[in-house]
């Protein structure tokens, strides 16, 4: 008797296209899945749907103009992108940033980390079917975005961190605003944990799903919460401190289970650690003090000076028309973004525009291990695995 199986012949697998328009791929990722029943036999990620050529565009902008492009890479972590780019340029120039500006940077980047983790938690929860957590996370994220709007004038594309410091003096009333957020937030994190951490559905969807061995994680260059959930306390903020992180007291949360649940626990713990850092940074930021370093010809002079002193005005014109030229050489700086190691490599040839500007995107590198993680798993778990790697397609494709 002829059945469907014999008519099909030897081939027992089917190919399913997940994405590029699939809500749980968090953007426009396409994964071609070869399925045997419900089991994934082979997975081939296909990227580039959001490729905007930012690295090439940076080469035709002056060093300070390119900051605005970095905002648009990893759109959940624009301040972190600003920071890594500015740190790399400052390294090329040999600039020292005033302590006050460094603390402001730390505070902003940690707030950004919280907001990024909130978006991750919310979207991942909604992928797993928990609607309320999504709404709650975005409610709290709104508070952070309001703080950014108060500081920089934009909620997302802030361009707040600049070469040599930050763009603007902290606004009036910022302390109350951040303080209000800090007092509110721990209770809200408790709420999320009450909803999820012990929830039976949550546990059965995440536990023992998407495991990766620590050796594999290192070999695949994975970083960030994914690596820390595999049991290695590697965090650039501690190992290679930048922007005065060595002065802050915080822990690196790690887990050893290395599954989706472990990554969730690490991220929630990181939100709490970041709150601690914001608190400390707030205490360290003095009310008076410089927000930019004094570097004539590189950092724009203060507006008052620009209007009264001829020399400052000339520098002001020079910076905004032709920019500045770092000495030839190259620099690589890596920071800890919410997703992992975010690196920036800049090569200079002594002209006012970068010769090469490369971003080591954490999502891009982490996503590479996706086939390794999901092969042999069930189709429904693919969503959980993509979610907990925490990719941002703007970061993957750049």
């Amino acid at each position, binding site marked *: 008797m002829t059945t469907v199986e014999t008519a099909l012949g030897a081939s027992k697998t089917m190919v399913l296209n997940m994405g590029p328009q699939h809500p749980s791929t968090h953007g426009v990722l396409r994964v071609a899945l070869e399925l045997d029943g419900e089991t994934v036999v082979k997975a081939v990620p296909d990227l580039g749907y959001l490729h905007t050529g930012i690295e090439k565009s940076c080469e035709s*902008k002056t060093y300070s103009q390119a900051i*605005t*492009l970095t905002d648009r890479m990893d759109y959940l972590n624009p301040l972190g992108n600003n920071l890594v780019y500015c740190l790399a340029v400052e390294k090329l120039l040999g600039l020292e940033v005033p302590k006050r500006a460094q603390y402001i940077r730390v505070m902003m980047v940690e707030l950004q980390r919280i907001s990024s983790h909130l978006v991750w938690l919310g979207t991942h929860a909604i992928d797993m079917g928990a609607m*309320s957590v999504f709404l709650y996370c975005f409610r709290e994220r709104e508070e952070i975005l309001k703080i950014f709007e*108060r500081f920089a004038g934009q909620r997302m594309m802030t361009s707040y961190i600049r070469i040599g410091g930050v763009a*603007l003096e902290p606004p009036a009333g910022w302390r109350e605003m951040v303080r209000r957020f800090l007092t509110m937030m721990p209770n809200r994190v408790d709420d999320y944990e009450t909803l999820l951490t*012990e*929830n039976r559905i949550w*546990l059965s969807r995440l536990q023992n799903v998407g495991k990766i061995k620590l050796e594999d994680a290192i070999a695949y260059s994975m970083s960030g919460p994914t690596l820390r959930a595999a049991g290695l306390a590697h965090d650039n903020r501690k190992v290679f401190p930048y922007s005065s992180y060595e002065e802050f007291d915080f822990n690196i949360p790690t887990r050893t289970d290395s599954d989706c649940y472990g990554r969730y626990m690490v991220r929630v713990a990181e939100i709490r650690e970041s709150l601690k850092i914001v608190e400390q940074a707030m205490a360290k930021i003095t009310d008076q003090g410089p927000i930019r370093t004094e570097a004539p010809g590189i950092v724009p002079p203060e507006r008052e000076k620009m209007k009264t002193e001829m020399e400052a005005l000339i520098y002001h014109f020079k910076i905004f*028309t032709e920019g500045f030229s770092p000495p030839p050489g190259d620099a690589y700086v890596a920071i800890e973004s919410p997703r992992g190691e975010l690196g920036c490599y800049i090569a200079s040839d002594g002209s006012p525009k970068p010769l090469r500007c490369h971003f080591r995107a954490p999502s891009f590198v982490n996503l590479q291990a996706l086939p390794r993680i999901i092969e042999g798993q069930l189709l429904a778990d693919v969503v959980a695995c993509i979610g907990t790697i925490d990719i941002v397609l703007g970061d993957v494709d750049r």
Partner: protein
Amino acid sequence: MVMASPIREVFETFRTMFNGFSVTFRTMFRKTVTESYPEQPVNFQPRYRGIHVLHRDENGLEKCVGCFLCAAACPANCIYIEAAENTDANRISAGERYASVYNIDYSRCIFCGYCVEACPTDAITHGHGFELAPYDINSLVYRKEQMLEKDIALPKAAAAR
């Protein structure tokens, strides 16, 4: 997670469900944070970067002196300026020159604020306008008259033109 007994499993499930629902139940009595935008105005922070405003000085003259610095600083190349000389008969700005054409292409503008930082005379700032969306992309090129501050009662010097 492997549970010791099915009874315990059922009990745990109900306990965590109850805890979870208590959170959502409490949230019902919280004040809503949603802003009903089209009906109510949006609350912006003072530094919000919206549609640009070109300013006038205390005499009603345009502050812009046509120095092209904003156009040079713009990372998106969205500012187009043509400068012209002021004459005594036709005085537009306090400086030597003024911008006879000042266009911002909002289909390119990224609202980064570099033009505001660059302007040496504080002629351009960001306003709080944001409702830009049109049906025709060409209408996104804003001319000077659309962005120029209007409300100042013009003294003689400016009114004469």
